[in-house]
């Protein structure tokens, strides 16, 4: 017996030595020299798919990009400052923006950063050969759509550099939010020589790109982490306090929280299951997403019936839904436009300027039943259970839970049948585009902080209008707002359009996404914003 135990012990020892014997592929190398460096590490659920400014196609990418790129402007919690541009003028008709660059701008490799680089960046975004997913942003530029569709040469785009330090941009229509767009990475400068040298590998590795922003990419371990280091060539480097920002890919949010407790992460998201445990230590922030059920109003679809759509809207108890599905983290919402977008005056907020509650937050079952009865007599049903509506959603945990709660609530309140169909995200998009659904759980994240970003969706011929919603009155107001130069009148037109849309029950508004963040106490000046990126650590600092 003893001998046998000895044998077991020996093999165990052997295993341990074998395992210890060989190093680890990613082996930690920089642990030692990190002493004294000001470093902030935050977690991402998924690696940014690219760090190429014009190809940016996701919020994680864009979040990295605001640190490595210097746009003409910079967005700090909604306040637009000059970044590459020192100041700018707008023509009286609101169509021509003239940006004056700062003197002595440099790329991270020491080359001069000129107006030509900005022009090239924007041209590259719109060039069909670049195949950028986000080129739709450039539709606002003069000839933007034509260039992107390959009908015009890139040089005909409304972006020019009259001299080395001036960028002139001409728009298709006036847009007060345009300076917020120039802060986005897609409008950032690009290095023509490097793009031509590396082709598709441009920005694939730290040394295959140059950076214009406050930080440079100093290391990219694919799938694992991206290290951003302070850029000594940045014009405003004295305002930058951090030495390094590390973006760590941690797929499992629970793991992220455990790593935060271990001190491996400084900022991480808390999954809703753990909300209560960390409620005291957390910050709650809105990420700008507004989720709703889009309802298919195409010919022959059951939800073409307005009373049925209204019945759904009254049947949902949004308070209870939020409690069950998100543990109370998200905010129940009964309107369509994100209240956080800009109001008609500087510093105001659309939601405060035009308060609106389209449906009772806690629902109204009696009202819902009245609408249902009306709908059933119109549609020729006698028994509510014969009414079957399919709810299309994606395959994530949260999507499933949200759908389950809605299913139960609507079935309980109305006695109709809701069938959940879970598919992959890509399949959902395809089914949406094919108008092959009854209702779909979806949402919208704005690209610029303006109500128009939401309302343009439901124009009769809107690219993203997959529900066949069409109301001439709505179209007239939304299109009219584009040429209205009085900000107050414009905002009122948009608000009126929003009311019409909700009275038509075009969607079932549900929630504003709120994220629960664990942030280390010693981090100062960390801020978040809801358009274009999540986190902003540019001016952050670490307290001693």
């Amino acid at each position: 017996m003893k001998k046998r135990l000895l044998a077991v012990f020996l093999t165990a020892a052997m295993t341990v030595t074998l395992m210890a014997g060989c190093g680890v592929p990613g082996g930690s190398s920089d642990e030692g020299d990190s002493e004294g460096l000001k470093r902030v590490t935050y977690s991402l659920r998924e690696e940014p798919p690219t760090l190429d400014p014009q190809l940016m196609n996701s919020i994680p990418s864009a979040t990295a990009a605001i640190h490595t790129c210097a746009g003409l402007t910079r967005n700090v919690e909604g306040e637009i400052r000059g970044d590459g541009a020192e100041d700018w003028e707008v023509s009286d008709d609101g169509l021509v923006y003239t940006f004056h660059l700062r003197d002595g701008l440099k790329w991270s490799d020491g080359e001069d950063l000129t107006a030509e680089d900005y022009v090239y960046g924007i041209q590259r975004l719109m060039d069909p050969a670049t195949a950028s997913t986000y080129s739709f942003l450039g539709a606002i530029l003069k000839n933007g759509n034509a260039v992107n569709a390959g009908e015009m040469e890139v040089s005909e785009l409304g972006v020019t550099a009259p001299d080395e330090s001036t960028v002139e941009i001409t728009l298709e229509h006036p847009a007060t939010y345009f300076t917020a767009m120039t802060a986005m990475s897609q409008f950032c400068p690009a290095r023509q020589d490097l793009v031509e040298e590396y082709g598709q590998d441009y920005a694939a590795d730290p040394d295959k790109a140059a950076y214009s922003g406050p930080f440079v990419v100093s290391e990219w371990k694919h799938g694992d982490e991206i290290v951003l280091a302070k850029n000594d060539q940045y014009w405003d480097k004295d305002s930058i306090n951090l030495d390094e920002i590390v973006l760590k890919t941690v797929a499992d949010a629970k793991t992220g929280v455990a790593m935060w407790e271990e001190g491996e992460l400084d900022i991480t998201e808390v999954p809703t299951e753990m909300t209560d445990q960390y409620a005291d230590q957390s910050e709650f922030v809105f990420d700008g997403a507004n989720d709703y059920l889009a309802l298919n109003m195409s010919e022959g679809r059951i939800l073409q019936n307005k009373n049925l759509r209204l019945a759904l809207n009254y049947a949902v108890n949004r308070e209870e839904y939020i409690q069950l599905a998100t543990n109370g983290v998200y905010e129940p919402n009964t309107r369509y436009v994100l209240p956080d977008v800009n109001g008609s005056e500087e510093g105001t907020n659309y939601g405060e300027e035009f308060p609106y509650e389209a449906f009772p937050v806690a629902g109204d079952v009696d009202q819902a039943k009245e609408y249902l009865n009306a709908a059933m007599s119109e549609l020729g049903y006698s028994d509510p259970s014969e009414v079957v509506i399919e709810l299309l959603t994606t395959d994530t945990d949260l999507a499933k839970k949200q759908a389950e709660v809605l299913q139960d609530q609507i079935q309980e309140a109305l006695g109709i049948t809701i069938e959940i169909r879970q598919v992959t995200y890509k399949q959902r998009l395809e089914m949406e585009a094919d108008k092959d659904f009854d209702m779909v759980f979806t949402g919208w994240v704005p690209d610029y902080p303006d109500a128009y970003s939401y309302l343009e969706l439901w124009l009769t011929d809107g690219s993203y209008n997959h529900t066949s919603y069409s109301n001439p009155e709505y179209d007239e107001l939304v299109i009219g707002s584009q040429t209205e130069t009085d900000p107050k009148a414009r905002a009122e037109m948009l608000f009126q359009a929003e009311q019409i849309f909700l009275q038509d029950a075009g969607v079932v508004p549900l929630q504003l996404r709120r994220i629960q963040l664990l942030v280390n106490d010693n981090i100062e000046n960390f801020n978040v914003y809801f358009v274009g990126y999540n986190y902003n650590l540019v001016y952050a600092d670490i307290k001693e």
Partner: protein
Amino acid sequence: MAEITREKFKVVGKNISSMESISRPNIGYWQDAWRRIRKNKVAFFSLCLIGLYIILAIFAPILSHYTHYTQNVNEMNQSFSSSHWFGTDSLGRDLWVRAWMGARVSLTIGFTASIINGIIGSLVGGISGYYGGKVDLLIQRIVDVLYGIPSMIITLLLMVVLGNGVHCLIIAMICVGWIGSCRTVRGEVLKLRESDFVAAAKIMGVKDIVIIVKHILPNVMGLIITSVTMAIPNAIFQEAFLSYIGLGISPPDCSWGVLAKEGIQMLRVYPYQVFVPAFMICTTMLALNLLGDGLRDAFDPKLRGTE
């Protein structure tokens, strides 16, 4: 010395019936197996446990006054109690009912998928092994290719056609699942093909089909049954994995995999929620594994009649 005369003998005649009578009761193949399985205490207990789970899966949800889908905002995440025997989940649903509804799905998938897999696998494996040569080569290459196709693609494609349901998951599992039993059966048949009794049958001019059914099949039966019982856990696991990546059955229905996944999210806050499905998956696997071992012995013709 006494003489032995003819008279001393008498003809008793042939009593055919007594000559041919069998002194011990006739035990068929299946009877013998059943007799042996009953004697194997561990295997028999496992069989009973699985039987119990099946009975509970059928009746528990009917007898409870809760349903597996009714949510209750006032009873979220409650631990074990007299009203909720297994507690409630994050939507306030009764986990006792959900556990047995889950059992229905998981056991249905597990049994159906692995039995069909077993049948297809042993047919193809048998043909491949018995005929050998080019037939074998072709079948084995097909098997290699099938094994290399990511099963997730197959599942996704089937879901487009069939929707998310138990039948879709079962078909998806069958598409590649039969490969395992095909390989084992082929290996065994390859060996048996060269055995003396098959050679004898061939010399006597017995038809191929008869040889396969009468001589080879009983010899691989034990192996097939074992691999089927061992495949049930695999099917349940696979369903759990598909639930893990969000491709399981459509809510509010659930399986043990779904429950385990929902539970594991709550591990740090409400550990009991993962305990229930984990315990059920674990005990089922344990029982099936032990039963599989017992069955292997019970169906082995070499051990027939031995105690």
